[in-house]
């Protein structure tokens, strides 16, 4: 309790040290944080994955699936059938096949009212079939899902996955050991169908009301424990990739990832994560570089908060899921795995999942992967984001102490050296005088005293709160305005992309120009205070974000921490310009565009600069629309979070640069002159 009771703690020395070195301390923390985060990829620091849930008993049973020819037949039939349906799902065929196997088979209709632009309506249809568990009362279920992709789809085909699914269903329906229902689900329109199905299954709406209308469902199984999503592109594949990044950066339980990985390895398939094999390189440096690249590609995917497969939508419902994506390799000799192998992987996985006694809860939910068999747990990566968030907090604390110290010195100067030791007579006289005063007299004296003008300039709280509230109003407006403008734009014939991008750019520009119109410079202390609040808000937001999505938190912290450190009201005109230019570069809109441009440039390195520019512009416009649509349909909060917190605080910091210079700075300068 020394911390609480020591009356002299924090009196001077520590705070003086902090005030003197806080900038250096922040730089140090920032560097250590970044270096530490990068070092996490090294196998010297992170650890290898292991099974935490005993009940899974992975790979303990002998695989029994043999029916390769059946799968081949299904595949050929489906290919033939698909030709009849150009851009929709061949559901009569699917229904017939599932019914033939004796499963409870249902269809599920959903529709989407496109939330932007001129109102449009899309419809879709999912097909699903349920094997009822012979050994339990349909209280729990597992899901095997495949996104159906018609021939016109831009994505790689998944017909072979459906063939495998059917073959596996045919195999599984005969077995007596299932203790959990198995749902075979074929979804349409990629993630849309999956989201609609999940919402209908659980009877909820995740996004805005009346956008995705998930409809009703005729048949249900028990509560879903785990799901495997299949995206096998070819009948013969050479490697299998496990995808895990979900909505808002959520991840599945590490045990499920390990389980499917182990099953793939057991069947002799090469396993990749982010299309990268687990490699052990002899040189420590190269090993780290390789692992770091793998980790960073996960960080990039996770940071967007957009699921990279249908598995990512399950997490919101507390269901663990992964996508197994199978690729054929360019060298035909290495594509040794056919339907047989993959169905055996599925068999192993589902039989392990069948053993589960409770929901997945043992292993990690918060981790980063640097290879298929190395993980970085939350305990390891949290210090990195804490160090970065601490830079904001420490600067805020230092600023706070500065403000407070200034007040103190002012007061001391005002105090003077009046002697207060009085003789007894005077004291008596005083007491007599005080006793003579009535309550009313005291009140009058009090009024007079409190009307005395302040002896130093205090923080203008009204001013600060006005700026703070206004900048958040702008943030809120940016969240909703583009959507409305897209409706307005549609009536005037503008495309959704143009109206949204234009609105965002216009509002951002207004936010930038507005403070320029104010003639009077805001007081130093007020701006210092605003700076403190904004720093605290960003710091808090980063810590909160890190709980959901470490990648986006790291990314934002890494780019904002250095820039916010430089934001201080100063006298020097050129510093001010540098500050503002730098800070303009940090506007979320600019950062967003630059990120997209960099991605475009890396994706199309051979194009000319002009081509890349137009491509990037198009991509940015598209991405902005997608992020708004995602938040409307799936409840992805990336766009809302950026506008409501980061645009708002950006404006606060921007306003701070307009403040008057630190008066103590002036005093020092005069002295040095």
């Amino acid at each position, binding site marked *: 309790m020394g911390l609480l009771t020591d009356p002299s703690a924090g009196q001077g020395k520590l705070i003086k040290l902090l005030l003197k070195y806080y900038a250096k301390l922040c730089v140090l923390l920032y560097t250590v944080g970044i270096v530490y985060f990068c070092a996490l990829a090294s196998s010297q620091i992170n650890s290898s994955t292991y099974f935490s849930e005993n009940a899974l008993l992975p790979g303990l049973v002998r695989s029994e699936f043999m029916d390769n020819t059946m799968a081949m037949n299904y595949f050929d039939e489906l290919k033939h059938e698909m030709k009849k349906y150009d851009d929709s799902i061949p559901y009569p065929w699917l229904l017939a096949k599932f019914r033939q196997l004796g499963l409870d088979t249902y269809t599920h209709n959903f529709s989407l009212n496109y939330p932007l632009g001129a109102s449009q309506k899309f419809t879709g249809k999912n097909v699903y079939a349920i094997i009822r568990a012979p050994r339990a009362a349909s209280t729990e279920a597992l899901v095997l899902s495949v996104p159906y992709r018609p021939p016109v789809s831009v994505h790689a085909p998944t017909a072979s996955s459906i063939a495998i699914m059917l073959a596996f269903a045919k195999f599984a329906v005969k077995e007596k050991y299932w203790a959990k229902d198995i749902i075979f689900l074929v979804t349409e329109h990629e993630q849309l169908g999956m989201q609609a199905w999940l919402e209908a299954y659980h009877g909820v709406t995740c996004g805005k009301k009346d956008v995705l209308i998930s409809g009703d469902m005729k048949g249900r199984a028990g509560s879903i424990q785990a799901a495997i999503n299949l995206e096998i592109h070819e009948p013969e594949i050479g490697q299998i990739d496990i995808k895990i990044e979900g909505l808002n950066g959520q991840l599945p339980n590490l045990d499920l990832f390990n389980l499917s990985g182990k099953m793939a390895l057991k069947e002799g398939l090469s396993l990749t994560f982010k299309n990268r094999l687990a490699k052990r390189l002899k040189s420590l440096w190269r090993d780290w570089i390789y692992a770091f690249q793998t980790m960073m590609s996960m960080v990039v995917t996770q940071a967007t908060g957009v699921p990279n497969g249908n598995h990512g939508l399950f997490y919101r419902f507390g269901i663990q899921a992964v996508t197994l994506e199978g690729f054929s390799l360019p060298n035909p000799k290495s594509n040794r795995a056919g339907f047989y192998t993959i169905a055996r992987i599925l068999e192993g996985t589902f039989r392990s999942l069948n053993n589960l006694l409770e929901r997945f809860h043992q292993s990690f939910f918060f981790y980063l992967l640097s290879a298929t068999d190395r993980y970085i747990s939350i305990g390891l990566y949290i210090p990195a984001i804490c160090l970065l968030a601490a830079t904001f907090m420490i600067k805020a604390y230092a600023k706070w102490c500065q403000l407070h110290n200034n007040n103190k010195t002012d007061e001391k100067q005002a105090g003077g050296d009046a002697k*207060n030791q009085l003789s007894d007579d005077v004291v008596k006289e005083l007491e007599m005088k005080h006793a003579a005063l009535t309550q009313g007299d005291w009140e009058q004296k009090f009024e007079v*005293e409190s009307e005395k003008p302040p002896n130093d300039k205090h923080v203008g709280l009204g001013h600060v709160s006005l700026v703070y509230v206004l900048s958040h109003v702008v943030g809120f407006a940016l969240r909703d305005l583009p959507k409305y403008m897209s409706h307005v734009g549609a009536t005037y014939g503008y495309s959704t992309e143009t109206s949204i991008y234009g609105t965002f750019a216009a509002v951002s520009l207004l936010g930038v120009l507005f403070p320029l119109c104010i003639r009077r410079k805001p007081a130093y202390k007020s701006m210092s205070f605003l700076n403190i609040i904004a720093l605290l808000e960003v710091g808090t937001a980063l810590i909160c974000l890190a709980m959901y999505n470490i990648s986006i938190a790291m990314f934002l912290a890494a780019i904002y921490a250095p820039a916010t450190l430089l934001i201080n009201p100063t006298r020097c005109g050129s510093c001010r310009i540098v500050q503002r230019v730098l800070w303009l570069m940090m506007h979320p809109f600019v950062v967003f565009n630059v990120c997209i441009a960099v991605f475009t440039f890396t994706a199309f390195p051979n194009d000319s600069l002009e081509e890349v520019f137009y491509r990037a512009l198009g991509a940015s416009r598209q991405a902005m629309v997608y992020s708004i649509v995602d938040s409307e349909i799936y409840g992805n909060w990336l766009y809302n979070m950026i506008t409501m917190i980061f645009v708002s605080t950006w404006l606060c910091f921007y306003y701070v640069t307009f403040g008057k210079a630190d008066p103590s700075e002036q005093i020092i300068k005069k002295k040095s002159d």
Partner: protein
Amino acid sequence: MTMSRKNLLLTYSLAVGVRYLFLHSDFQKDIVNRIEIQTPLNSFKRVVEGRYRMSLGIDPYESDSLHVPPLHLTFYTFLIDNFPNYLPYIFMLIDLLTGHCLYTFARRYMLKLYIKQEKNKHTYAEDALSQLLEGRDLYLPPQYALVVFLFNPYTIFNSAAMTTTTVNNLLLSLFFVGIIYDNLVISLAAMTLSTLQSFYPVIMIAPLYLTVYKRKESHLQACLTLFIYALSVIGIIYISGIIYNGYQFLDQTYGFILKVPDQQPNVGVFWYFFMEMFEHFRLLFLFSYQMNVTVLYFLPLTFKFREDPPLLAACFVTLIAIFKSYPSIGDFALSLALLPCWKHLYSCMQQVFISSVTIVITTALAPILWDLWIFWGTANANFFFGATLAFVTAHIFLVTDISFAYTKREYLLKYGNCRQINGKDAKLVLE
């Protein structure tokens, strides 16, 4: 200088505006049902249910749903029956009244501080002048108290959820007004009603006693006041028992508060502890936890702050909010709004910034961890409890800080800022 009437009106209308906007926003439904705001004890839904059961002729205290005492239930029934469509606005009004009470209290408190300072000025050390209150030091705290109370999200959410804590806050703030104006009727009535509702304000007898004693300088009269208080509490319970044909409600109200049978998570410390603990230790820890709220700090703080009953009462309000069995953020709203009255202690305080930042972070973090625990199923109870524990600890630091700052300021006023003995730097040690 009083805050001009225009400014005051502006503040109130802004407060109403913010509440109105919140009431009609998309978040309203998601936020008001959160466990940080509604506990089994203060949930208005349960009151509505109790009223309905009563109208059907069923004893509302028969099942485990209603924990509001009969007198208060009658009041809420009256509200629900007569103004069914204006309930949110009534709670808004209660909020404004609470804010105004706090404002009145703070102004009067500053006046008292000023009088005390002027009277004792000659006894202060010569270099303690920087500690003296002048100008804005006296003029700002009431405004801060008002603004902090009315625009604190805790308060806004609390009144939007129409919790009974809103009413309890009004009663407690009336009690503060009562003790600062030496008005026995108001303070006794407010305290009686507040004790009836949430029991813990019973420890407010200490500030009440001190107030009466300071004014009348007679222990007998002070004891008499407490006697009247006890009599009125018992009287009301007795009459309620006659009207409700029995005393089952005692077990459902005070029994519910003291025995803590409901372990729904909240921002406090009880639920996690009693959930994790072996059942046969329950009684032991029940006693120690309840003694922690009521008895442990009662005498020490009373002796230490005998000169300043409002400060004592404020410390008690915070301690109750921290350690009571079913705290909600509405309780903390009141304790935070009282802080500006001790703005003059700030220069002697040490961890205000750190504690406040912790409160802000944990307030943001707790709902997220709750979400991860309950909806995504990825985190667990420890995450959420960790956040609320940090939240509570920050409040403990805050209240401890204030009490030490009070002592330190007394010292500084007497002996001055100079901390040197024989030319060497000296250190203040508390023993």
